[in-house]
Structures are given as structure tokens and as C-alpha cells.
């Protein structure tokens, strides 16, 4: 059930009405029913697997909580980790691996959200092992936490310490909270379906015909892709967070103006926060803890390795192709280089005359981060390693011929679908997105709350502008009644 479908709208409104109308005791049951129905629509054959994962992990956590023997608890944890990582491996990577070995293997269909719910479960089990989180005795509440329909397909990957208490004490209906939720949902739709999808169509033209475009266009498409990815994923997260907020839940933020980052470390504090923090808390922290006794250069090197390793793992988590792994490796390299050179760069920054102007300094720093991010993202977007390398090589060609020929520039932009309307829409829309999110961040408010807090005329104007943009320019698919059929 896609968020933009009519059937999801009906489903969500009905869940909302039922959830807020029924007494507190019934609320988790309503949510569980909704979650399972949502999941079943995505593939009813996977419901038993999801239920089995939930029941198994719930039982393991309770068992871990009961037993005192540390070795036994650790053994239980390892069995669970191997089990769930094995499950993820089987559905996501096994067929690719077998194809690499044998040349051919039937593609294994993966259950909806397998990457997300396995990580949610693993995070919970590790927290229970560390005694940072008591095991949840109520199976229904735990099941709701793992299978939440708004988040199961694309996150944010929530933590038990945040969600379980909210499930135990659901908030009563509140108009302002509901309105903030809907503001957030609308904002997400604007970002994803108006801006991201439009940029995506432009990027697809270039990446679909790499040989047909010169360096400037390859660079432009790659730069656009970075922003498209933020708008797309960030927009989706806004919708998911807005849905949860409308239901009365405060969910973690997943993106915090990532391209306002002044360093690569800052970028990863602001980008896909739920996943990055998951790897930090459950991979980096344990590794760091285990190497804390190692001194000197070896200690430093191991520390950098611990930082590095998160990124290839994150790459693999995103997808099975080597491109995702390379994306992770490059990001890891940039992070480590950033950490290694922090002191030196700060020294140089003090001597840099350009940095005397705060705006110029911010522009340069943010620009460098954006370029580095884009340099990595080519692997993420390209269809293969070969295509990625072809694109990198292509970056350097055709600059003189293209830029000194206005007709070539115009025809290339036209082919990409970049005309006056597109420039106004995307340029203007992006500026509005950045300004609004900056204003919200300054006030330490979520974007939904910030929009809802605007004075009524401005608020309604903002809502109507987004709705009209969605109506006229949203890329939502095609009406099934319009295409020429068989």
C-alpha cells in the first residue's frame, strides 16, 4: 500500500478514527490489526514470517531478562543476531551470491521491510542484553513496536526506549498534535512527489544515456541526484513521522538539514539518522569499547577502522550490488580522512582569508561536503560499477565544447526536462524547503510544528501552495484509465 494511493488514504483515516475513538486498552490492538493488514496487502505470504520474528525475539528477550548467567545471555544474543542477520542475508544477498558463483540463480523475493524490522528487533535485543531496556512482557505492544505500518517499509528505525513507553501510555486525541502530523505529511508529499520525483526524471535521462551526455551534464545530474535522494528519502520520512504524530507518537527524526553540514562528520549526524545512529550504537560503540585498551598509533588506527567499517556495512544494508559497497567504502574513507586531518584543517582554516566572512566560510564548507557526498553517490545511482567508472571518467570531458556552445547547453537542458517552469519549481521549491527547515531548526521545532505555528493566513497559504503544487506538478504515477491498454 503506497502512501500516495487512495486506498492508503482510506486505510489511514479509518485507523486514525478507530484509534482515537476507542479506549486506551484497545488502542494497541487497533494498531496491531492495522499493521498486520498493511503488511498482508504487501504480501500475505510474509505475515507468518513477520509474526514468527516478533514472537521469537519477544521470547528471547524475556528469557535473557530472566537468566543471570552472563555467558548464557551472550549465547542467546549471538544465536538471535546470527539468526536475524542470516535471515537478512538469505533474502537480500543469497541469490546475488549464488549468481556470482554459479552464473544463474532464481531471484529470491524479499518480504516487505525485512531490512528495517530485523534492525529494529536486533537493536531491541542488544538493548535488553545490555540491560539498557527491560524486556517487554506485553506481546501486543512489542508486536506493534516492531511492525508499525508507517515505518516498516522505509523507517525511521525506532528504538524500544522511545516507543514502548509511548505504547504503554498512549496520548489522548489532541487537535494540535493531529494538525502537526498532517502538516508534516503534506510537507513530505511536497518534498517527495513534487520536487524529488521531478528531479529524478531529469537525472534518469542522463543516467539512462551516459554516453550521450558530456561532462557538465553528468556533473549536473550527479549533483541533482544528491539533492533528489535527500528530498525523496527525507520526504518519505516526513510522511512516516507525520503519520505517527497524527496517531499521537513522537518518533525520532531521520534527517536534519543534512546539506547544512560543515563537515563530513556533521553530515552523517544529520543524514538517515536512525540508521547511522543504529550502526554507531550497535557496531561502532561495542568495537570502540573492545579496543579501548589499545594505546598509541595502533589504538588510533583501530579507532579509525571502527569508524570506517560502519560505512561499507551501511552500503551493503542498502543493496546487494557492488556499487552500494563502493559507496560505503568511499564514505568511510572520507570520514576517516576527515577525522585524521581535523586538527590540521582547523589550523589552515584560521589562516584562510576567505573564512573571515562567515557566509563565505559556510558556503565553502557546505559546498565541499556536498561535493564529497556527490562523489560517493555516483556508485549508489549507477547501474553497475562499470557505469559508475564511466560516469567518473565522463565528468572531465566536453567542458569546453559544451560551455562555449549555448545551443548545446540549451538542448541538453531541454532533453533533461529543465525548462523555465522546472527551474522555477525546483529552484524555488528547494529554496523554500531549506528556508522553512532552517527556520524550524532555529526555533527547535519540527517542521510540522513550525508550519502549524504560523499565523493562520500564512499557514493556510502554505498548505494551499503545497496542495496546488502537488495537484499540478506532483509526479504521482499515471491514472490507470489514461494509458493505452492491451
Amino acid at each position, binding site marked *: 500500500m503506497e502512501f500516495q494511493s487512495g486506498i492508503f488514504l482510506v486505510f489511514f483515516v479509518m485507523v486514525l478514527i478507530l484509534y482515537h475513538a476507542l479506549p486506551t486498552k484497545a488502542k494497541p490492538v487497533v494498531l496491531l490489526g492495522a499493521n498486520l493488514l498493511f503488511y498482508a496487502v504487501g504480501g500475505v505470504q510474509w505475515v507468518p514470517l513477520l509474526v514468527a520474528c516478533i514472537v521469537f525475539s519477544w521470547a528471547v528477550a524475556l528469557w535473557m531478562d530472566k537468566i543471570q548467567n552472563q555467558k548464557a545471555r551472550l549465547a542467546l544474543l549471538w544465536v538471535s543476531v546470527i539468526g536475524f542477520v542470516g535471515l537478512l542475508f538469505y533474502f537480500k544477498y543469497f541469490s546475488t551470491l549464488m549468481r556470482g558463483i554459479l552464473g544463474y540463480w532464481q531471484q529470491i523475493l524479499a518480504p516487505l521491510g525485512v531490512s528495517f524490522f530485523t534492525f529494529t528487533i536486533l537493536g531491541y535485543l542488544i538493548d535488553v542484553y545490555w540491560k539498557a531496556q527491560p524486556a517487554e512482557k506485553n506481546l501486543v505492544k512489542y508486536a506493534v513496536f516492531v511492525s508499525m505500518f508507517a515505518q516498516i517499509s522505509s523507517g525511521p528505525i525506532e528504538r524500544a526506549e522511545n516507543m514502548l513507553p509511548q505504547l504503554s501510555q498512549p496520548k489522548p486525541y489532541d*487537535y494540535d498534535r493531529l494538525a502537526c502530523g498532517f502538516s508534516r505529511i503534506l510537507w513530505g508529499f511536497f518534498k517527495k512527489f513534487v520536487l524529488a520525483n521531478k528531479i529524478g526524471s531529469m537525472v534518469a535521462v542522463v543516467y539512462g544515456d551516459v554516453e550521450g551526455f558530456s561532462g557538465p551534464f553528468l556533473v549536473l545530474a550527479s549533483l541533482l541526484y544528491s539533492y533528489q535522494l535527500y528530498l525523496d528519502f527525507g520526504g518519505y520520512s516526513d510522511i512516516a513521522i507525520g503519520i505517527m504524530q497524527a496517531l499521537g507518537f513522537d518518533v525520532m527524526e531521520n534527517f536534519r538539514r543534512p546539506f547544512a553540514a560543515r563537515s563530513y562528520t556533521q553530515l552523517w549526524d544529520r543524514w538517515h539518522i536512525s540508521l547511522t545512529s543504529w550502526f554507531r550504537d550497535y557496531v561502532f560503540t561495542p568495537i570502540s569499547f573492545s579496543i579501548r585498551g589499545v594505546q598509541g598509533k595502533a589504538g588510533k588506527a583501530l579507532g579509525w577502522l571502527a569508524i570506517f567499517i560502519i560505512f561499507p556495512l551501511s552500503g551493503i544494508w542498502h543493496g546487494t550490488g557492488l556499487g552500494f559497497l563502493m559507496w560505503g567504502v568511499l564514505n568511510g574513507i572520507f570520514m576517516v580522512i576527515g577525522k585524521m586531518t581535523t586538527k590540521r584543517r582547523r589550523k589552515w582554516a584560521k589562516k584562510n582569508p576567505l573564512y573571515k566572512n562567515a557566509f563565505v566560510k559556510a558556503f565553502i564548507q557546505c559546498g565541499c561536503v556536498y561535493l564529497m557526498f556527490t562523489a560517493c553517490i555516483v556508485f549508489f545511482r549507477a547501474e553497475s560499477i562499470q557505469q559508475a567508472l564511466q560516469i567518473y571518467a565522463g565528468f572531465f570531458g566536453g567542458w569546453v565544447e559544451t560551455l562555449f556552445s549555448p545551443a548545446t547547453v540549451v538542448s541538453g537542458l531541454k532533453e533533461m526536462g529543465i525548462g523555465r517552469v522546472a527551474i522555477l519549481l525546483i529552484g524555488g521549491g528547494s529554496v523554500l524547503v531549506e528556508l522553512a527547515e532552517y527556520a524550524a531548526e532555529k526555533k527547535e521545532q519540527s517542521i510540522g510544528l513550525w508550519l502549524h505555528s504560523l499565523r493562520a493566513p500564512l499557514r493556510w497559504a502554505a498548505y494551499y501552495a503545497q496542495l496546488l503544487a502537488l495537484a499540478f506538478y506532483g509526479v504521482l504515477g499515471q*491514472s490507470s484509465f489514461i494509458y493505452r491498454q*492491451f
Partner: protein
Amino acid sequence: MKKLLCGALVFLPFVLFIVGINYYADPANILQVGYEQKVAEILVQGKNASNIRNMDDRALIREYAENTSLKIDTLLLGSSHSMQVTKEITGDPNTFCAGVTGSDLRDCISIWRLMLQQGQMPKRVILTIDPWMLAEGCLEKRAMTDGYVEFCKEHGTTALATAGNWQAKLEKLSQAFSLTYFQSSVQYLQKGLDKTRDPIPTEEFYTQTDMRRADGSYGYNAELRDVTPENMYDRVKDYILFKPELMQDFDGINPLLQTQLELFIDEMQQKGTEVTLFLSPFNNAYYDHMSSQTDNYVEMLSVEPLVRNIAKEKGVQVIGSYDPYACGLTQMDFYDGLHCSSESVKRFWGKTIKD
């Protein structure tokens, strides 16, 4: 609650705006009624109807069947593939193509039964068999099922997915609120097409616009008929890159549908009707792609030998083939990945393609 209602009411103008534009423009003729009746009125007069928009083919066929005075001797059934077969191709001036877009087997049986109810008794039925006609996953939401349900009762077989088409009706109604339909409505209004909405009677075989001819065959608009090697590549590549939904839904040859096809042929033959099976070829580039794949395309193409076996058992002629090379066609004989032109059909019609 008051605040919630007031808040919701503020969005009402937006909703009314969307619904209003969608209803007024209605580019697919799904919200307003009467369009199919206008087209049918032209056809029953023996004229061709040009300036055709998207419409409910099934409603058109019902209107035509109830109002025609033509004695149909050759009846064509099937999807849009059947609509390229004209009376000139069949050689029978009393030919009518009752094809409907997205036709499945239930449509064919129901339309046959509808014709019988209206007093028609065709001497010949040409049944177009598309691969997805035998797949349960490809059953068409809009399909006519009344006659099919009766057919299944009489033959003691299970009727598939006949829950009154409420899903299709709901989906139609929901288009009033649809933003994607709104964008099509806006484009429709920008092109001024609302001013030239009605079908126009004509004697021409082809016009600038889409048309449905008096014999039920379909003439595509000038833009689609303008086939060049450059635009053919663009038209076919989407089929190759993005597998059409109908083919994604192909979940194998359903034994029940196969049995029902055989029973349908038997029923027509028992009524003294000569049955011919028509296999419409795929575009060469698309066929090459399909033949090289190892997914459900394999089973889709295996429908042809299955149909030929059934035809042999029943003593029924088979015209055409999914293989365009066997039909002697090139890419330029097609409008897109799936639809070949009437002129191309004429070239292989009546020839034995494969034994």
C-alpha cells in the same frame, strides 16, 4: 471536534476544485455518462466514429448490441489486438469486432452470450487469444461477467473473480478525487479538447484522431501511425525496460481458464459457429527480448503451442503467431511493442504460419 471539522472544511475548496475539474474535463469519460451511447449511435448507422476518446468499451459493446440492426455473420472477440482486423481482412461485409481493451476470457464469453441474447447468431467467431487470457493473475477488473457466470453454471465449472466488478466501479468513482486524473484533466483542457469532445461520424478509413469503425475495428490517431525507426525505438524500449503491468501479473497458465477456453470453443461449435483462433504478433524487438528472458515470459510464449494443440484437437483454424518473424513482419509493421497495423494483419491473414 469542532476545531477538527473547521480545519477539514478549510480544505473543502481544494477538494471541490479537483473534483470539479475532473468531472468537467473527464478525459477518460469515466465520470460523465452517455459518451458510449453517442459512439454506438454512429456505428449502428453504418458510419465510422472519429474523435474517439478513452471510453468504456464494454458499455459501447452493450449499447451497440442492443441497438444494431446489422446481422453479424463474423464476430471478432478479444482485446485491442482484435481491433486491427477489419471486414476487408475477413472478407465478410457483415463483420463486427466486439473487442474491448484489456479483454480477458470472461469478457469474450460474456460478449458472445450478449450477442446471442440480442438475437445474433454469428456464422464465424474469430477469438483473439493473448497469453494473459489464461492467467488468473491477469483477470481484468472491468471485465463483463454476467454471461460468463451463466456459462460456468451451465458447464459446471467455477466462475473466477466475479464479485460484481465493484472494485472497478469504485476505482472509477475514485478518479473524481485523483490528482493524477486531475493532471490529465488539466492537459485535456489546455489542449482545448473539451470543446471537441463528441465523436464525429466519418466515412474515412483513417483520420487524424482515434476512431472506431462501423465494423468495430479501431483506427489509431495520426501521431501513433507515424512510425519511424527513431520513434519505434522509443516506443518499444519502455516495454523492454519496464515490463507492462499485465505481464508482471502473469502467474502461469491456469488449468481452469484453459478448460473454460476449450468449453467455450465447444459451445460455439455446437451452435454451428465456425471458430478461428487469432494470435496477434509481438513487435520484433520486444519478442526478441521476451524470448531471451528466463522469467514468466517463458510461460507466456508457451501459450502459443498450447493454443495450437487445442486448435488441432478441436479442428479449429489458427491465424497468426506471437512470433512476428513467422508472420513475415518487421518492427515497422507495428505501432508499438504490441500492436501491429491492419495492413500488416492483412499480409499474414489466411496463411498457414506454423503447424
